[in-house]
């Protein structure tokens, strides 16, 4: 066994600054960073991409109906509703609804429209909390955690009421890696497991839950189309420009001056990218001092779907989970992982959320170390969204009617293509 491993020149290495190991299969980093990914994926269109899809109102409406109304969408994490009675509310104005996500008495998760069967009022008005039932403030109708009717006040005055039909209307719900996904389609074409497919299987053994007891959450309403925001997080080309001060040379250097990926793998609707780590990275004095106070984590080997090229220059992966969340596991020098979520509001606005999930500190000094990681990450995101809004202004000008993308921006093309395919499929089905 040992000989076979040696023959393939595979070996495990610890990822610098973390307790993760990765299996190194190749050290020929130049072949990886100079690879033409279009050769691997000839089905992805080349050439300029139309600006129209980022500004058109009718295209936006089709995206909502064809994609968001029928896809599995992340609404939160299981840690937010750890115990029976815990709940949170997720508003999805573009889908014209508000959902209650609750942990029921038997430990399962229910996801329901937040709508009273009496005269339609929003039932739960808090963002989150713990309760034994949801009560409508208007006339006091109440619902159990699973959405079934608990109390109809002045019941005698509703002689014909069929209470079995008056529960909070359910939506589909399932979990993967501790993420709670909902689907407004009550009979989704695919289960969540089928939907996530090979990407889901390849990365599910990452310790998503272990890093999720604590998190930093930031959000902003951005004046840009949701895809403009998403595009900013599926390429590493911009790191050396807009982020050059905050991220310094962590993902580029003389050998790889534009931070080319080590790998791009497309998985149907989803995609995975591996970010290069520069050995020449210069830590700031603060970061160097804090590296003595990293949170201890049980050693683990990253799952096979991460760093699939097996490069020792691996920094972290970017997992694009269609349609609107990007997971950044590995975290390179952060420890833990972070996610970016882009929720459409209008054709020209979206809600951007950044969540940083990290190991639980055991000392106050380790907590200070995490604060540094949190501040850097959200300062970097502030740079991203300044950028996105400026781009949206000029997209709307129509002065250029196309954008020109690099080989390294393959996932932007793929995602545009997946949306287009879903819209066509939806239109064919409904006609």
């Amino acid at each position, binding site marked *: 066994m040992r000989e076979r491993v040696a023959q393939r020149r595979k070996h495990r290495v610890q990822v610098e600054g973390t307790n993760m190991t990765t299996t190194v299969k190749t050290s020929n980093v130049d072949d990886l960073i100079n690879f033409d990914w279009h050769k691997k994926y000839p089905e992805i269109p080349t050439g300029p991409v139309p600006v129209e899809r980022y500004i058109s109102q009718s295209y936006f409406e089709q995206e909502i109906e064809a994609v968001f109304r029928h896809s599995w969408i992340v609404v939160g994490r299981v840690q937010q509703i750890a115990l029976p009675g815990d709940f949170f509310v997720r508003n999805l104005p573009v889908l014209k609804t508000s959902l209650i996500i609750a942990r029921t008495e038997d430990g399962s998760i229910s996801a329901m429209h937040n709508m009273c069967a009496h005269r339609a009022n929003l039932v739960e008005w808090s963002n989150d909390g713990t309760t034994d039932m949801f009560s409508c403030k208007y006339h006091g109708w109440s619902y159990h955690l699973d959405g079934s009717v608990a109390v109809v006040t002045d019941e005698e005055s509703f002689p014909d009421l069929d209470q079995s039909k008056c529960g909070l209307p359910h939506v589909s719900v399932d979990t993967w890696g501790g993420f709670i996904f909902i689907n407004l389609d009550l009979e989704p074409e695919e289960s969540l497991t089928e939907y996530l497919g090979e990407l889901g299987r390849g990365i599910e053994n990452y310790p998503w839950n272990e890093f999720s007891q604590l998190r*930093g*959450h*930031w*959000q*902003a*309403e951005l004046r840009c189309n949701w895809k403009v925001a998403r595009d900013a997080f599926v390429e590493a080309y911009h790191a050396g420009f*807009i982020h050059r*001060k*905050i991220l*310094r040379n962590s993902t580029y250097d003389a050998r790889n001056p534009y931070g080319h990926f080590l790998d791009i793998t497309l998985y149907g609707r989803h995609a995975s990218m591996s970010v290069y780590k520069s050995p020449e990275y210069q830590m*700031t*004095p*603060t970061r160097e*001092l*804090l590296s*003595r*106070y990293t949170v201890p984590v049980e050693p683990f080997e990253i799952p096979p779907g991460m760093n699939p090229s097996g490069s020792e220059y691996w920094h972290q992966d970017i997992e694009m989970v269609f349609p609107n969340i990007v997971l950044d596991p590995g975290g390179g020098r952060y420890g833990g992982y972070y996610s970016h979520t882009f929720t459409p509001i209008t054709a020209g606005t979206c809600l951007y959320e950044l969540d940083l999930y990290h190991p639980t*500190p*055991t*000392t*106050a*000094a*380790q*907590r*200070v170390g995490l*604060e*540094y990681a*949190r*501040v*850097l990450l*959200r*300062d970097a*995101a*502030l*740079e991203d*969204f*300044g950028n996105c*809004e400026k781009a949206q202004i000029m997209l709307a000008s129509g002065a250029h009617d196309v954008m020109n993308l690099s080989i390294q921006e393959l996932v932007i093309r793929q995602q545009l293509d997946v949306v287009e395919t879903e819209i066509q499929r939806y239109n064919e089905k409904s006609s």
Partner: protein
Amino acid sequence: MTQATTLPEGFESLRPYLDWALPTERERFVRRNTSEMTQIQEFWDAMTPLLPAALEYLDQFPEDELSGDGYALFLLALATMEIAPAVENFGEPGVPDAADFRRWHPSQ
């Protein structure tokens, strides 16, 4: 909460900067973004020589078992993390060429 007025032994020189001992990320973020660079630099210059000792002190306790003095030092260390990019990366209080910081909402 009431403003801390004391610090652990060896850290008394930080007393003039206790107004940086803010309990939430939101308050630290606003403080940094509404301060002049000279104020940030003054706090930074007072704090950073003591930061290795502060971290050593804070490494003895979990966050929720800090004494009142220790908690004030902990908050000053968190504020130092908040201003670190201003001093070490940007040379100005906020993030240059970025969106207005007031539109970015931390949950804590």
